[in-house]
């Protein structure tokens, strides 16, 4: 489904060139639950922006469902974001002046869907995340966990193939975090491809496949069925990385 071939992205930061992503290749199949783990500055946000069609690559090729995105126009990228990708952000990113229902309707508004059809779809999505009683509340009347569930509803309302979750639990308490992760699992079970971006190995443990990024490169990419084996591997890796940084 996602195929990244030798992609690079550089930024100019205070006169210095930063290789946020450096000749990175990654393939993600349909119906996978992948976590991308990395410390801040490891390039995971840049990677997520590229996969989410929010940013273009400098070099390399990005194929989404076999289509080469690298050559897409801004208009085509917007259409892709609208139809193929659902975003869940750390800061929820809901529009404060709209109710939960209106927030969830918004992607459908940009598809040009009629009022009654999109209302039905948005209600369905909100019911799916368990917020049927809070549809007409505004974000500031909802708890953090509820806001994030609205964001998940907004991500899935267009029935996208790919759901991109960027630190979805970063601003949540542990109980709400668990609920959101359970929700992501549910969506995975329902057939969505989930890409979870996090700095936390414990959160990443939820995924079936974990990709670790250091300085814009993939240092490990493995599937673990056994939680304990994964955590042991993680510890080892962290030690190596720590030494590498130390020296």
């Amino acid at each position, binding site marked *: 489904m996602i195929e990244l071939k030798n992609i690079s992205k550089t930024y100019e930061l205070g006169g210095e060139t930063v290789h946020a992503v450096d000749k990175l290749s990654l393939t993600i199949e349909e119906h996978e639950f992948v976590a991308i783990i990395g410390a801040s500055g490891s390039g995971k946000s840049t990677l997520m922006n590229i996969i*989410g069609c929010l940013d273009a690559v400098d070099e390399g090729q990005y194929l989404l469902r076999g289509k080469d995105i690298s050559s897409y126009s801004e208009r085509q990228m917007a259409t892709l*974001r609208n139809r193929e990708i659902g975003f869940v952000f750390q800061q929820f990113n809901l529009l404060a002046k709209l109710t939960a229902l209106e927030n969830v309707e918004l992607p459908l508004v940009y598809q040009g869907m009629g009022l009654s059809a999109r209302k039905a779809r948005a209600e369905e999505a909100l019911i799916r995340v368990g917020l049927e009683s809070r549809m007409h509340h505004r974000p500031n009347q909802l708890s953090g966990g509820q806001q994030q569930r609205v964001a998940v509803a*907004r991500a899935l309302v267009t029935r996208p193939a790919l759901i991109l979750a960027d630190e979805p639990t970063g601003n949540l308490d542990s109980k709400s975090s668990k609920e959101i992760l359970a929700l992501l699992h549910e969506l995975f079970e329902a057939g969505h491809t989930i890409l979870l971006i996090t700095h936390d190995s414990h959160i990443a443990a939820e995924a079936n496949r974990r990709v670790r990024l250091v300085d814009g490169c993939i240092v490990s990419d493995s599937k673990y069925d056994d939680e304990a084996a994964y955590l042991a591997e993680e510890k080892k890796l962290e030690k190596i990385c720590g030494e590498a940084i130390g020296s």
Partner: protein
Amino acid sequence: MKLTQAVKMAFSAILSNKMRSFLTMLGIIIGVLSVTLLVSIVQGATDSVTVQLEGLGGNQLIVAVTTPQTTYITLDDLDNLQNKDGIGLIAPVIGGADTAKADGKSSSVSISGVLETSLEVDSISVVSGRFIQQSDNDNRMCVAVVGAKIAKDLFGHTDVVGSNFTMLGRTFEIIGVLEEDGTVSMNSQDSTCYIPISTASRLLGQTSIRSFNATTTSVEEIDLGRQTIENFLGGKIKSSSADSEDKGYTIFNMGDLLSAFDSVMTTMSLLLGGIASISLIVGGIGIMNIMLVSVTERTREIGIRKAIGAQHSDILIQFLIEAVAISITGGVIGMLLGAGLLQVLSGIMDMTLNLSVSVSALALGFSLAIGVIFGIYPANKAAKLKPIDALRYE
């Protein structure tokens, strides 16, 4: 995205910031209000004067001798001209001014020495008594037809036929009173005193006629009549000036007067409208300013909208409609206020003032244009934001 949805979004954004939207609108409200008021008042004034002028007739020629040289145009000359080549009646005038006195009271009057023909040519209406007759002229009678103001000044009422007053050193008998026209202009009929032209000629010491009004047999004959008079005056008056344009006399038709007046008023309304529209432009700058602030404030919102699939055009239209909605709403409010104020003013100014369709269309068109012109730059700025930059904005 559908347009109705975009309009809904724009209005909810405007309503969520009521005070700011209202203050922004105020610039446009004041602008449209001043444009509609000024243009409508000029139009109303034009209309009322035009109606008055048209009442004076389109088949009338007003002739005045302008050369400073002594001319010899006699009553007989003019009498011969009557009923010739398009000319109907001719009403010569010998004018002057004096103070009329009676019973120790006085009134300043403008004297018009006339023939009986003036009654018809100048559409004079006498409410009591009669007008100057041929016999009055033949006998150089000291009789007068006076305006209502003169009658009131001298006697306190207008029932004055048969009373006497003194003027130009003679005693005049009042034989008629003119209809009151109520205006206070310099040549108001109310302070005019008509006397026989032969009497005026002698008392004012004028033998040559220097001004007269003539009617043509019909409105269509106006050019023929004008030519007849020109031929006649051309033989009487030698142009003294080197300027070939100056013939030493002027012939004026109400039509000429009307079109001259119209062009003055059009210039006037353009001028006033132009000055007022400066305030509209200032209002537009206010809109642009507030929209730029709004775009900066809502950078994150724009980022979210773009991330979930809003196109460049969706954002552009959303912000553009917001600007246009502010300016159009301001325009409509300004127009309604203008219409209301015009009603109040028509009562005060004793003039029919209405908001014409063309002025309303102009005001609305102008405010629409202001919204688009001053809204496009901020809207484009919003639409051009990159989603990742906008999302990162705090």
